[in-house]
């Protein structure tokens, strides 16, 4: 089934709603799904209007302003979420499978520590896309994140595997301490590649950490300070 969710009104504080396509399976469960308005525990239908379309999909469509709704698609394992506007922090965190499409912009932490699946953002994202959470030693482990607009700082830090593509520009610390996987920034990036142990970064132009050495093929390899085997390809070189 497809579940269409719309906020009933403006929220006093941000809402935490770990909505996944699974909740579209059953209307009653969806209505009673627990969400949090600050310290108050609420049922989904208290804060949102729900509309069911009986089809063969396992799909959630978010309409209206979700920019202050956090944790959409957390640990999602399959199905699809379409966000028609903007969406709040931690979209698709720890995601394992399925697909999220955002027509608008995202706040920070898109696909934090993602393991699988796909996130496509047609607008811009905030910081820490596919990044590790505080103190964790590994970031994104699989899946794919495509950002058609620009991304903020700390993209794909400590990435182990998977792919992040930014069609626009990215901020500082692209792929810091990356171990594997691939990050592509088609436009400009800030500080890039620091303490990279493995993996590949392709970037239009960037401020490369002064710890990389250019090889005969014109590819930057490093980070020398961690005896890293990372590769940074600067497309405009």
């Amino acid at each position: 089934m497809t579940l269409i969710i719309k906020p009933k009104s403006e929220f006093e504080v941000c809402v935490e709603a770990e909505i996944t396509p699974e909740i579209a399976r059953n209307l009653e469960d969806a209505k009673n799904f627990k969400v949090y308005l600050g310290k108050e525990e609420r049922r989904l239908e208290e804060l949102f209007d729900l509309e069911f379309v009986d089809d063969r999909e396992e799909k959630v469509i978010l309409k209206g302003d979700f920019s202050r709704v956090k944790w959409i698609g957390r640990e999602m394992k399959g199905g699809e979420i379409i966000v028609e506007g903007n969406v709040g922090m931690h979209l698709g965190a720890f995601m394992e499978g399925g697909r999220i499409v955002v027509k608008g912009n995202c706040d920070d932490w898109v696909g934090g520590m993602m393991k699988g699946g796909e996130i496509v953002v047609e607008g811009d994202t905030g910081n820490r896309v596919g990044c590790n959470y505080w103190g964790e030693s590994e970031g994104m482990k699989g899946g794919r994140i495509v950002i058609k607009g620009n991304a903020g700082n700390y993209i794909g830090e400590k990435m182990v595997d998977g792919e992040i593509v930014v069609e626009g520009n990215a901020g500082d610390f692209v792929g810091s301490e990356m171990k594997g996987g691939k990050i592509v920034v088609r436009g400009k990036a800030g500080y890039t590649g620091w303490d990279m142990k493995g993996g590949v970064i392709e970037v239009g132009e960037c401020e490369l950490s002064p710890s990389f050495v250019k090889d005969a093929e014109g590819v930057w390899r490093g980070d020398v300070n961690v005896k890293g085997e990372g590769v940074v390809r600067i497309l405009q070189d």
Partner: protein
Amino acid sequence: MSVIYIKGGIVVDPTQGIDGEIMDIFVKDGKIVEESGAGKADTVIDAKGMTVVAGGIDIHAHIAGPKINAGRAMRPEDMKYARNKSGPLRCAMGRVLMTCPAIGYEYARMGYTTAIEPATPALYAIHTHEELDSIPMVDKAVLPLFGNWHLTFKFAAEGDIEKMKAFIAWAIERSKGFGVKVVNPGGVEAWKYGRNVHSLDERIPGFEATPAEVLSTLIKASIELNLPHKVHVHCNNLGVPGSAETTAETIKLAEKIGASKDGRESLHITHIQFNAYTGEKWRDMGSGAEELSKLVNRTPVTVDMGQPIFGHTTTMTADGPFEFALHKLFKSKWINKDVEIETGGGIVPITYRAKSPVNAVQWATGLEFGLLVDADKVVISTDYPNGGPFVEYPYIMTLLMSRKFREKEIEEKGVNSYIEKATSLPSLDVERTFYEIVKMTRSTPAKILGLENKGTLKVGADADITIYPFDCRNVSPEDYEVLLKGLRSVAYTIKDGEIVVKDGEIAKEVWGRTFWVNAVKGATQEIIEEDLNEVFRYYTVSRGNYGVREEWIRRPETIAIEE
């Protein structure tokens, strides 16, 4: 305060030689009393089929102070686990490292009622006491660090026992401490020069003293001062192949000096497992536990195990150079702190892996000590958090009580078979009795600490009591699962005469006492006046601001040593 009758329980109390007798225990005003003096019961606990023992005592757990707190701040990935949500009780956080409320609650839920923070720089004692004051449920005490203090080196070099006595008394009074802790004597000072000391007879950089002289002087001074707990040492060369030899030499220093005046041991070797490796390199590293256990059993020395638990944890010790070595080895995050002219310390996360030959030997070595040292001389510990979480004590108890459980763990966890070559554990058929386990968690630590009202169910003792939900006479090493479950799920914990845990859950939040030893009358303080004034020229705090006043502590209890 109320009166509690504990009726018909199976009592085990090694201090009275009671091993599984059905008895009633009476509690009044926080103490264990005679039936005749108890009066009318406010609460009657029907302990039929349950085992009644004294509250557990952790002799060595880094539960408070700047080290564990820096560890918490460094490891949000460890602290994010919620053990208890906020409600009538506090929210309690942490997986291995824990917040103060979590530490108190978990001890109580395990039937433990006393815990000793074993290493604080006296300079940071105010902080350590603040944290101890935030740990509910248990009684506690703190051991200030002496092994790398410039004044310690000076008095050791001069062999001046009188000054050392005065200094010890001054420092534990100032820090509201309980005894003398020594960590890698001389080595932490050497680390401030980027080095370490590697033997007991090496000169400490910048001083005339050797680690052996530091230890001997401190042991002698502690004996003469009649401290309830004598020197508590983390030996030199910790954590490296060959450390067993250094530990043996350290034990022999105490052997030479002899026992305390009251006949108790004069030296406590802490987390001995970490200091008990033979071999020259990691590749030929083995366990020195068999030899060291024999040595411990015939010398005036006690030990605690320092048992590692497979999994993640965080190491933290005043042994700065050791933590630097760990950082280099694992390329992991590393906190170091060089503390004025008195000590230092470091923190490094670690994972003990059953499949690693080194970690497997460490695991086996800890258990060897737990099996081979007299139960009157060895205490169960993980050196929390260095070996792992203290909440695993029931697991360690079960390992010590059941060979079958040890074999199952070796098999299921895939403990590296190198232990067959490098340790005696696989061939040991020793199985500790419940009575011995009660010693190793109650009466032995109480004796080592000199806490006469702890670890016992004698009339007059503190009413700190654990009631296990099983009959200890009926548990067989064969049924280790039953045993482990029983040890993990305490029926009641009674602290100072109040029921604080019921059926494994916290029933009431209470605040324990902080014991500290006042030994200033045991030494002439004036003889170190000049030395103190001289040394404070090189401190960055005034002498007048150094130390803790009793009124800043929530529930202080002084143990005064008479002249």
